[in-house]
């Protein structure tokens, strides 16, 4: 039996928001009977464009049902722009994790949400991951979809690809093609990095320029993201490459704040200021 978290079990045994909405504003349907899991997500917006009601129906295993239930709780009250930002990792995190082999269930949630929002905006045909050549015939997964998952989740093995999008989980005859896609994606990424390193001159900033750029980056690229989730950040001090910040709002109590500090705050500052920046949290 799979080692499911208590939260997965809770959402499986007591799924929230099961059912259908009459005259929904947006509907996203993904998966199929042949693939073994499917999800239908329905959204109703209020007059201010926020998701006022959400319902789902799903055919799938325990983690598929739990992922769908979690997703519906996560999108409630959000605008479509805010909901669009929800990733499959967010769904898995919300559930305190999923077994590796079940990560495709959270991917299915994200895809249903994308499909619903895209259908609302009339962008159905613009979903790039749906196009391409079928590589995994057992589950009907295209080369573009595999490449997308490889890039997005930094996948390096066929097993990981299978966990995220099912490709290669059937007869296994597509394994050489999947390996070739993985190799190609990382070869291209390597070439891109080398190219950018070669053309991008190292930034030589004065202290005043650096401090200004740090402040600008926090205001422009970091605070809005945190504020959208009820959190905030304050710049406390700058000492050479050390940037001291303090979290505010929901970020203070957030168990993932250490991850946010590195993966969002430090990553953005390294991207826009200098890659030697080290961000530290100070409690004030």
């Amino acid at each position, binding site marked *: 039996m799979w080692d499911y978290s208590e939260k997965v079990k809770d959402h499986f045994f007591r799924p929230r928001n099961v059912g259908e909405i009459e005259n929904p504003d947006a509907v996203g349907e993904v998966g199929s009977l042949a693939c*073994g899991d499917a999800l239908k997500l329905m959204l109703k917006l209020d007059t201010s464009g926020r998701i006022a009601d959400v319902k789902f129906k799903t*055919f799938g*295993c*325990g983690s598929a049902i739990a992922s769908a239930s979690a997703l519906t709780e996560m999108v409630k009250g959000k605008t479509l722009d805010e909901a669009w930002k929800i990733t499959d990792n967010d769904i898995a995190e919300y559930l305190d994790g999923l077994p590796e082999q079940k990560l495709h269930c959270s991917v299915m949630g994200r895809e249903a949400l994308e499909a619903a929002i895209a259908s609302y905006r009339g962008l159905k045909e613009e979903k790039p991951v749906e196009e391409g050549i079928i590589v995994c015939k057992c589950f009907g997964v295209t080369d573009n979809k595999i490449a997308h998952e490889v890039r997005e989740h930094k996948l390096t093995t066929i097993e990981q690809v299978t966990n995220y999008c099912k490709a290669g*989980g059937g007869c296994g005859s597509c394994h050489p093609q999947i390996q070739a896609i993985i190799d190609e994606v990382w070869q291209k990424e390597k070439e891109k990095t080398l190219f950018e390193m070669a053309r991008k001159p190292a930034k030589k900033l004065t202290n005043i320029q650096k401090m200004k750029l740090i402040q600008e980056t926090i205001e422009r690229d970091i605070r809005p993201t945190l504020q959208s989730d009820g959190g905030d950040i304050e710049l406390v001090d700058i000492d050479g490459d050390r940037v001291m910040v303090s979290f505010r709002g929901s970020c203070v109590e957030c168990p993932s704040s250490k991850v946010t500090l590195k993966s969002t705050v430090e990553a953005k500052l390294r991207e826009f200021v200098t890659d030697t920046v080290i961000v530290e949290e100070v409690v004030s």
Partner: protein
Amino acid sequence: MKVVYADNNATTMVAPEVVEAMLPYFTEYYGNPSSMHTFGGQVAKKMDVARQQVAEIIGADPTEVVFSSCGTESDNAAIWGILRANPRKRHIVTTRVEHSAVYNLGKYLAQSGYHVTELGVDSDGMLNLDELSDTIREDTAIVSIMYANNETGVIFPIEQIGQIVKSKGSILHTDAVQAVGKIPLNLSKSTIDLLTLSGHKLHAPKGVGALFIRKGITFTPFIVGGHQEKNRRGGTENVPSIIGLGKACELAKSYMDDEWVGIKQLRDTLEEEILKKAPDARVNGHKTQRLPNTTNLSFEFVEGEAILLLLNEKGICASSGSACTSGSLEPSHVLRAMGVPFTAVHGSVRLSLSRYNTREDVQYIIEHLPPIIRRLREISPYGREMKMKEQAAKVSAGIQ
């Protein structure tokens, strides 16, 4: 919490009598059966008794019984043993519904340069014997076909198969792990050359099995080591488990005639009531040529793992051929080979009973399984398809 164990094709409870028989061989009689001293020799004598008990349940001569660690080892030993003894023969015949011990070995051998023919089955899970006959060639080293299927319980006509195999001059191995102890076997009047059995499927412990090798069959050992098992399987024997296997075989033989009638009645009640109470359900496998303890049910538009989790919540232990219960993502290769439609293949549940199951157990499953299916169907997005199916069924029955 109440526990109803209905997963006996996966493994069985070790019978109390078996435990009792084994215990002295951990403490009092711990000698090595290969030793020259009397202390070890007495253990060897007890092992001979166990070999006799195993031989009796399959109607073999004790010298034809080789102890092993499990069914998988016996299956591998049988196939490798024959291939190595006949190096010029590079063709193997098997089926698409074998247990993974043979199924995956077949895949491995195919990748290693052997020619492997996998015979298909019909929607009842039955083989086409004409196809089998046409498939066997001069260079066919071994035909390995299971006695009874672990997922559906379907019993193959193994003696007819054996006659075809013999007429073509090949060798027949059968994986009889699910059959031994459940249905009578008599290898003294049989066309079977090699037969696999496993202890934990018949109330002996896990980690012990046996391979029947008919006298006169040229066999190269799979595990090479000491001279144990008359040079057919190296390694010091798992004495306590072998004693347990012998006792379990003795018990199974004594229970088989009477008790399996009772178990079949329980299984039939279970099957009939579930089919009545859960619409759009089907039994996978032949109606009559089936093990008396096994039922494999498919419920359309729901997924097997979700069913198992909800059954587990009620203390009911069952199995599923659903993809999500395994790491492979693919639903059961057995059900797919039988052509079970996609609407049903993911929602399969296997219930397998033993002599320890009661009428109350069966009633408990009947009480809880249908509401679980209803609950999952309420969540399923295929409500429209279900209604269309119901409508089509009414039309075909003349009710509009």
